[in-house]
């Protein structure tokens, strides 16, 4: 009986369900500070998954993610509020996502032709030009001071502090609590759609494109169309993340959507591990939560002083930046496949320990028969470690 229960718990659907239930609990136990960290992390994760599709799977380096986030955020706040068309917020959110996708599509003449590092710098141009537009197009963007973001309403339910007042199980539900569930829903949507994309035909086509464009074209992948499509889809995820960020911030300002933000997103997918949805999520949580936590717990850390104390001392913001920079360098040089790769290797090692005679591991023998041309394994443990690694792009 208990063994069957354990087996059930180990199944994939059960684990997903357990995780979902756990993620639904925090609003009942944590205060607004933690909920905001979670909210920003979820928004960042959605954007990072989009960038991971583009840079990790399709191999198109993009430093322009902040631009598409800005389109989502500004698109929503313009379309939904008064100096603007004043659409119903839910419709405005959808339109903002489509708008971001359209912007990605407009960039496709460049994205389809320019490759590698050249593309990275070309997308850098988007960030600078976009920032300039945000600063100068006052009537739409509100200029330097930005504009305030109207709350999202969905069928009479507002994702803000009141209207209707809501108390669930004795916990008053304010803006953070409500937005938490919205973010969770959007994140789940991203997780499943991106996972499906990666596992299905488009994902394999994009990976083939990354590994060798010529080979992919010979196999029947339409190169230009897939490169452009990757850009559009990635921009739409960025737009969605932008909408959620705008809702969480309640005000959008141009300076937030700078080159530093693009670099943050690149760092997220690199730290997490390129081309995997789970990795992008882990990286997003790390990069988003680290500075916020450092600032909050600055006084309890050694060598770090509270903000605004003595001149020349190490403040929490700087300490967070040091850690962040060091994390990028260390992860890239010592674990180039990121947190996701580290987790996978740890799992492979555990699996090996559980089956001491590695050669009789069913997974290992399967990989050995499927690759008959490979040289005979030098040690019995090696195929067990190699087998998961060959499934490089499963999320």
């Amino acid at each position, binding site marked *: 009986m208990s063994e069957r229960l354990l087996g059930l718990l180990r199944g994939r659907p059960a684990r997903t369900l357990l995780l979902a239930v756990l993620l639904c609990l925090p609003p009942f136990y944590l205060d607004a500070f933690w909920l905001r960290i979670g909210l920003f992390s979820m928004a960042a994760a959605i954007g990072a998954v989009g960038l991971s599709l583009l840079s990790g799977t399709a191999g198109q380096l993009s430093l322009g993610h902040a631009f598409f986030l800005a389109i989502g955020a500004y698109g929503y706040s313009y379309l939904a509020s008064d100096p603007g068309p004043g659409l119903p917020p839910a419709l405005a959110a959808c339109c903002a996502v489509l708008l971001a996708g359209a912007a990605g599509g407009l960039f496709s003449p460049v994205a389809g032709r320019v490759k590698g590092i050249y593309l990275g710098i070309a997308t850098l141009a988007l960030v600078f030009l976009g920032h300039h537009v945000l600063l*100068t197009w006052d009537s739409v963007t509100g200029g330097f001071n930005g504009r305030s973001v109207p709350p999202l309403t969905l069928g009479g339910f507002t994702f803000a502090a009141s209207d209707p007042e809501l108390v669930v199980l004795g916990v008053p539900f304010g803006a953070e609590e409500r937005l938490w569930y919205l973010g969770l829903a959007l994140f789940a949507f991203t997780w499943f759609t991106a996972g499906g994309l990666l596992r299905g035909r488009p994902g394999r086509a994009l990976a083939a494109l990354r590994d060798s464009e010529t080979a992919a074209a010979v196999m029947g992948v339409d190169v230009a169309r897939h490169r452009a499509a990757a850009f559009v889809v990635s921009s739409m995820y960025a737009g969605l993340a932008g909408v959620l960020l705008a809702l969480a911030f309640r005000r959008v300002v141009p300076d937030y959507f700078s080159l530093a933000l693009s670099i943050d997103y690149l*760092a997220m997918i690199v730290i997490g591990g390129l081309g995997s949805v789970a990795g992008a999520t882990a990286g997003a949580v790390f990069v988003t939560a680290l500075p916020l936590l450092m600032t909050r717990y600055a006084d309890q850390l050694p060598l770090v002083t509270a903000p605004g104390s003595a001149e020349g001392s190490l403040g929490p913001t700087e300490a967070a930046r040091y850690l962040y920079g060091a994390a990028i360098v260390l992860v890239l040089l010592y674990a180039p496949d990121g947190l996701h790769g580290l987790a996978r290797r740890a799992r492979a090692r555990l699996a090996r320990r559980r089956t001491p005679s590695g050669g009789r591991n069913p997974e290992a023998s399967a990989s050995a028969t499927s690759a008959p041309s490979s040289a005979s394994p030098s040690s019995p443990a090696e195929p067990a470690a190699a087998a998961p690694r060959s499934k490089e792009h499963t999320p």
Partner: protein
Amino acid sequence: MTGFLDNVLNGLALGAVYALVALGFVVMFKASGVLNFAHGSVLLLGGYLIAVLHDDLGFAGALALAVLSTAALAGALDRFLLQRAGQDEQAAHIQTIATIGIDILIFTDLARRIGGDLLSLGDPWGDAVTELGPVTVADSRLAAIAVSTVVIAAVFALFRFTPWGLSLRAAAEDLEAAALMGVRLRRVRALAWCLAGGLAALAAVFLAAFPAPGLERTTGQIALHAFPAAILGGLASPVGALAGSLLIGLTEALVVGYESDLHVLGDGFGEVAPYAVMLLVLLVRPTGLFGAKGAARV
């Protein structure tokens, strides 16, 4: 008309300084396939060292020491950090992103030290100006053009006439073949990074000299304008970097000079004009003006 000449001369001076930075990008890219995002911070470090040391050592001494330090730092970063990730093309992408992390580390430290200050580099030109026929130019601008010309000519001579230059060109052409012919890739690479680091410190002098107010924490970010310059010329082409830098410098100076006529584009368009020019060029020539269109081998 004098306004136009003023702008052109300004643009040439700006382009000459960008060329020092862009040439650094190109040298590093040729040797290692890495686009160094930390170059702006290395430049800032060079400027900061000069600012701190010029009281004790005099300007020339401080400059020499700063050039040596940034060269050593850039070389060491490449040799002891980046080269751990290997030499092939895949590794080059990883190293490119790793330089972003390095940039964050160096910049955070320098920004903490500089704070909101404006540092003077103690350069010998001060705010002196020279009358050249109808136009008035700052001496520092003329010095920028002269020094850049000499230094860039020297770097081209290095490429052309020294064994190191030959090795570098061979390595850029075909890594494996070069290694088989006895080119010491690691050393060639590290030396290229040293050269780029030294050039960055030199560029810092002119970016902080009059009419700029002095060295600020954002000076390194101004060097980001050399990105479009290097890309627009073709990342692997030193001549391209030169042409791209002049084009970017002229564009920026002209857009700033005629800002009142270009009001449609909004205030401060000069800041982003280099990027607009780069996008236009990349649309027509995806590998830059002088970039080689590599044939795909199947």
